[in-house]
């Protein structure tokens, strides 16, 4: 289906859902039909899985928030100050909990927080009605989400997997082209852009794939394959940059051997060609070659390595090149398997997909706490205005302060988001006023209402279907529905219209002020913060044997995306040139290898490798504490190289050597070369 037609079918489905929700709400005499109306807009999404997941989360969050308000209001209603404190605290707790979870599930807590204000603060003058209000809120929200879920699953549903498979294919194509170019040249500043794109893409895959559980039943669930694909994609950049680093060091210390240059050329050509590996071809290689028949993959294992600097660098480059080829070949096979249910995977991938564990994303408890303070503070401040000023509409201001801070809690620039929401409301109000005071008085009955509302609903839905206008469309739709406040009988009251809408604006302005005070986050500062969290993770990997390497890698890759996007916004690299997410990932992967090969080597080599891990941990501790202590990374690694070089050449000792060289390139001062030393 062409794009414009898809948008139109989405808008039609949405309009049908809105009208159905309104009709049922009027027919059943519900208190506030407009709650059902804007709920449809809130859960609307061109992807049916996203609609259905948000539907479930919205019902759960509403139930939780309604229960809390029933629990809080009766005992506290006679002590307004305590009540405001309790409600603000609840909003803060909910914002904190929702920020710890970056998946769409976080909406449950976010909504639970401000639903308590919507129900609780609206009934303080008639506390006896809290139960009825809570029930009607739950009814209206459920009605809205059910209408939206049914309409969007029945009328031309679009599954998230179709969308994702297209994106995966195009990303693999462009990644192949980029990697093949990157192999032939040294690192350069514009690489940051590619890093950001791929890392953000992998995180998006993670977040978007959570909707698959909620898709219509014909969509295959393949969370294991998706997890594995993310693992492999996260390996591409650290591997290719390792090769680049090794080549640069080789070029600096002499020349690149024709053997290595040839291997790189062949790999580069293969990456660009887009040739699919044969998934069925048997692979005899450790780790599986997936049938990739490149000289780089097959030829390099047998021969002993010259233990001088160029020889070791070459070994490092070859090892990383091989890992790059494996990761890319696996990615392609996984992408094919995801797109085509019947495609058969090699056994090792099948097994890995079935056993892959949970992959957590980066989270920041400190920032979550800060946002929670901002949200609780804004709610409390608006409550204070309400009580001290004896302002009848103050409750609405408190509600909107809570809503504004909650919805903006994930953003770096919260104040800007809330300001644009205010502008959206101001734009929608004349529109709502036109309907409220000029059109609605002239009509009677649901059919006439549906006819006059349809153009507006269709317009907002069309806006929601587009990527660029989506947010604006949602704000306009909500402000329009709220401003219209359609109820059973028409009661236009210009004073009430102005009062409640100006209270909304005041509430949002309070939210802006609190966000400016508490949550003006400098992107460069945040980038440093995220990088430091990554350094702590590197230390954890060095000291704790139980850390799962693939999970670690994906989390670091997620951080890489977060850091590079913030550095781009800040327009400069943070203090010192020390922020380098790719370096941290390389160090981690090399440490993983060092950890893994230790078991197959002699006890003296194992002890030397343990010392290397301990030194890396100390090096990162000094980075974290901002002091650059003189740490003997170089010597410890060199000792490790000597011990491993003395071992009989085997797969394990070669991999270990390559990893040690990788660590040395990243952690030892630039230009340092390993020189053969004799163990005395």
């Amino acid at each position, binding site marked *: 289906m062409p794009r414009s037609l898809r948008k139109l079918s989405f808008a039609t489905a949405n309009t049908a859902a809105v009208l159905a929700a309104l009709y049922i709400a009027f027919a059943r005499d519900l208190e506030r039909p407009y709650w059902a109306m804007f709920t449809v807009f809130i859960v609307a999404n061109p992807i*049916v899985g996203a609609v259905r997941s948000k539907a479930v989360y919205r019902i759960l969050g509403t139930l939780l928030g309604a229960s809390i308000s029933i629990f809080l209001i009766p005992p506290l209603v006679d002590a307004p100050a305590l009540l405001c404190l309790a409600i603000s605290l609840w909003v803060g707790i909910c914002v904190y909990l929702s920020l710890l979870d970056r998946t769409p599930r976080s909406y449950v807590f976010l909504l639970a927080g401000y639903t308590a204000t919507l129900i609780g603060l609206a009934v303080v003058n008639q506390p006896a009605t809290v139960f009825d209000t809570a029930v009607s809120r739950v009814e209206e929200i459920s009605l809205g989400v059910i209408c939206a879920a*049914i309409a969007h*699953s*029945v009328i031309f*549903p679009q599954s998230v997997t179709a969308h994702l498979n297209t994106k995966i294919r195009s990303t693999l194509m462009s990644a192949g082209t980029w990697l093949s170019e990157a192999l032939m040249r040294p690192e350069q500043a514009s690489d940051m852009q590619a890093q950001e794109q791929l890392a953000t893409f992998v995180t998006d895959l993670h977040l978007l794939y959570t909707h698959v559980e909620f898709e*219509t*039943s*014909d*969509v295959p*669930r393949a969370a294991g394959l998706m997890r594995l694909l993310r693992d492999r994609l996260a390996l591409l950049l650290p591997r290719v940059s390792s090769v680049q680093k090794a080549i640069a060091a080789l070029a600096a210390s002499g020349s690149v051997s024709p053997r290595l240059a040839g291997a790189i050329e062949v790999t580069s050509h293969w990456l660009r060609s887009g040739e699919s590996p044969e998934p069925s071809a048997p692979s005899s290689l450790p780790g599986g070659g997936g049938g990739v028949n490149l000289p780089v993959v097959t030829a390099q294992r047998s021969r002993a390595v010259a233990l001088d600097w160029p020889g070791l660098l070459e070994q490092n480059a070859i090892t990383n090149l091989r890992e790059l080829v494996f990761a890319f070949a696996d990615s392609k096979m996984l992408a094919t398997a995801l797109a085509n249910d019947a495609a058969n995977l090699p056994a090792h991938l099948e097994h890995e997909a079935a056993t892959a564990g949970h992959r957590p994303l980066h989270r920041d408890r400190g920032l979550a706490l800060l946002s929670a303070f901002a949200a609780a503070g804004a709610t409390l401040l608006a409550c204070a205005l309400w009580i001290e000023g004896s302002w009848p509409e103050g409750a609405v201001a408190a509600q909107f302060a809570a809503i504004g801070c909650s919805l903006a809690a994930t953003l770096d620039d919260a104040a800007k988001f809330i300001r644009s929401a205010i502008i959206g409301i101001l734009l929608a109000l004349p529109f709502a006023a036109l309907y409220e005071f000029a059109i609605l008085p002239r009509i009677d009955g649901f059919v006439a209402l549906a006819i006059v509302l349809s153009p507006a609903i269709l317009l907002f839905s069309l806006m929601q279907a587009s990527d660029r206008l989506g947010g604006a469309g949602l704000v306009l739709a909500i402000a329009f529905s709220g401003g219209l406040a359609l109820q059973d009988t028409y009661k236009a009251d210009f004073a009430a219209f102005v009062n409640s809408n100006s209270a909304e604006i005041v509430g949002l302005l309070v939210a802006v002020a609190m966000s400016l005070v508490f949550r003006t986050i400098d992107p460069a500062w945040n980038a440093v913060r995220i990088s430091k969290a990554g350094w702590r993770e590197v230390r954890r990997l060095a000291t704790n044997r139980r850390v799962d390497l693939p999970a670690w890698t994906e989390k670091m890759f997620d951080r890489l995306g977060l850091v590079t996007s913030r550095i781009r916004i800040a327009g400069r690299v943070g203090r010192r040139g020390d922020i380098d997410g790719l370096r941290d990932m390389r160090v981690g992967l090399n440490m993983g290898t060092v950890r893994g090969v230790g078991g197959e080597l002699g006890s003296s080599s194992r002890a030397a490798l343990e010392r290397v891990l301990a030194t890396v941990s100390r090096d990162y501790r000094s980075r974290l504490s901002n002091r650059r202590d003189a740490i003997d990374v170089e010597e410890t690694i060199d000792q490790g190289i000597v011990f491993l070089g003395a071992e009989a050449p085997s797969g394990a000792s070669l991999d270990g050597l390559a990893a040690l060289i990788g660590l040395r390139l990243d952690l030892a001062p630039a230009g340092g070369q390993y020189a053969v030393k004799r163990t005395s």
Partner: protein
Amino acid sequence: MIGEIDIAGVFVPRLLIAALIAFCLTAVAQRSMRRLHLYRFIWHAGLFDVALFVVMLWATAVVTAAGNIPGVK
């Protein structure tokens, strides 16, 4: 189908209870059908899921209300 059930002093419509039961039944049915790859034979899974729920709701209503409501045996 009309009538309410008293759960600890809160009156809950029977239709809501029936809908919750039907939802669980539908989820089980969908899961097993997916496991058996039966959705290959279905043209419009979204429509099918909705219809399945309606059938389940009707079945639940008939089973739980049998004898109580005139017209439903």
